[in-house]
């Protein structure tokens, strides 16, 4: 039997803009198996980021159901959703979104602090993850002292801090040159293959989409497979 980590059932997201309704998502249904690597592609404004935010429990659908690890998220409180994000989902953003006042090490530590992980365990894990992304020498640098590629690798380490089963990447290479982008994608692909982390990646770059096992296309809030 197949094990789905992500299931979407007829998910709609409607924004009210003045008198007109905008369908950001217009009845999306999809499911992702454990260990899959999925790329969501589509032109800008197609709803791909909204879809990723639904999966990441950052946004609530207007109607339909989002099920993560067999938990229906539509009935969860803000606190429960936050716990779900913290423990199950790792986010990688296009703009890295590291906390500027914290060092690379501390940025990786942060999700574990939110989870009340002990100091010794935090230290061990943060060092291990920064080594994994090849930044063992940069652990005490602040984000502004790091290159874009390095920052994105710190962001990957941060996303992995609480051992998530799902990694959500929103244009992870969008701000990077080809070489750094490839380094970042190799790390993500490795995580998928070696650790079995489910990856959902949003991109409009076909060469990035090639890393995925399956590509899902979205247009005007609807999937076209």
């Amino acid at each position, binding site marked *: 039997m197949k094990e789905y980590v992500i299931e979407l059932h007829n998910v709609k997201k409607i924004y009210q803009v003045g008198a007109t309704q905008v369908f950001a998502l217009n009845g999306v249904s999809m499911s992702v198996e454990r260990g899959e690597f999925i790329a969501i592609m589509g032109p800008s404004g197609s709803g791909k980021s909204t879809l990723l935010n639904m999966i990441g429990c950052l946004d609530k659908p207007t109607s339909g159901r989002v099920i993560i690890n067999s938990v229906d998220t539509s009935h969860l409180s803000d606190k429960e959703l936050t716990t779900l994000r*913290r423990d199950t989902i790792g986010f990688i953003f296009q703009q890295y979104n590291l906390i500027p006042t914290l060092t690379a090490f501390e940025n990786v530590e942060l999700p574990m602090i939110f989870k009340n992980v002990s100091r010794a365990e935090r230290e061990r894990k943060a060092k291990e993850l920064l080594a994994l992304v090849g930044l063992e020498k940069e652990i005490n640098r602040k984000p502004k002292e790091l290159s874009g590629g390095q920052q994105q690798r710190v962001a990957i380490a941060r996303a992995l801090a609480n051992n998530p089963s799902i990694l959500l990447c929103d244009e992870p290479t969008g701000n990077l040159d080809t070489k750094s982008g490839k380094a970042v994608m190799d790390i993500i692909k490795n995580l998928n293959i070696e650790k079995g982390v489910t990856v959902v990646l949003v991109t409009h770059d076909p060469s990035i989409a090639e890393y995925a096992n399956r590509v899902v296309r979205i247009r005007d809030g609807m999937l076209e497979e």
Partner: protein
Amino acid sequence: MYFELARRNLMRNKARSFLAMLGIIIGVMAVASIGIFGESLKATVLEGFEDVANEIIVIPSYSHGYTSISKEIVFKMEKIPYVDKYFPIKSHQSVVEYKSKKGYSVVYGMEEDSVEDLFKAEKGSIRLKGHCVVGSGVAERFGVRVGSKIKIDGREFRVSAILREEGARFDINPNNAIFISIDDFNRLYDEEYSMVIVKVKDISDIELFKESVDKIINSREEKVSIFEMRIILERIDEVFKQVTIFLMAIAGVSLLVAGVSILNIMLMSTLERTKEIGVMRAIGAYRETILKIFLLEALILGITGSIIGGALSLAGGYAICMIVLQSAKYVLAPSSILYIFEGILFGVATALLSGLYPAWKASNLEPIEALRYE
């Protein structure tokens, strides 16, 4: 770690954080300095009254038609335990003559040791037998010196001592009085006692003494009334406390302004860090965590500023006391120091209250909205 995060956020814009803190420093300094000043003012006014708290003044009950206290009553009072010292006093408004000068003065008939107990001689030494002791005001008015001979209602007395000028008491004003012995008084006037000053052994004995007076002397009819110095002192204390609170409230306006400035920079900071808040919420920070981080920032500003302001208020209090009271000897009194802690407390509370709304606002941002914010 949250503390460290909050501290670093404040260090991001040092000038802004410092200015907000400066507001708290000034506010706390103003409130605490005024508090110290008020306390010093009270202490200065009450100075010299410390040893009268155990005094009781017994006077005739005028409302029941008594204008004097009889010898029998004084005799009965003497037998009441709890009494440590006990000064029966007779008084008369008398004509005083010295050389060509003539005028009126209050003449008190008292025991010699009573006068010695209650007052201090500036010149000469206190002796009453055939002599008199005059207050500083009387000495000045008539131009008498130790050894001068004055006439009281036609009878001559030699001045044995001039008393030191003293702040007004509630019972006797020694500056404008002449003291002679009870025996001499009895030769001049046929009068009974006008008051008895009683000192009890312990302040807690005051109630017991009053009960005894009610039982022994006032059992059938109220013949004497009792004034407790303690109650008068308490009233003075109360009035000055109110004055101090009023002054502190005025100084508190500056603390209010400081609160508004903290509110202002925290709101700006919330806005500037909207995206960061979104990121933290996304990677697993609860609303309470965001609230905690922002409140910590306000608290760090408040506590640091308040402690500096509190320390500076010692100098401020010293300056105000030197200017207004020409003395700073009560600035370091424990009751003054208490106002520093009060000022610090107000400062911290102001910062916390001002931080509350921005922190609440930050913690209530929707993660998705905050993440989209540019």
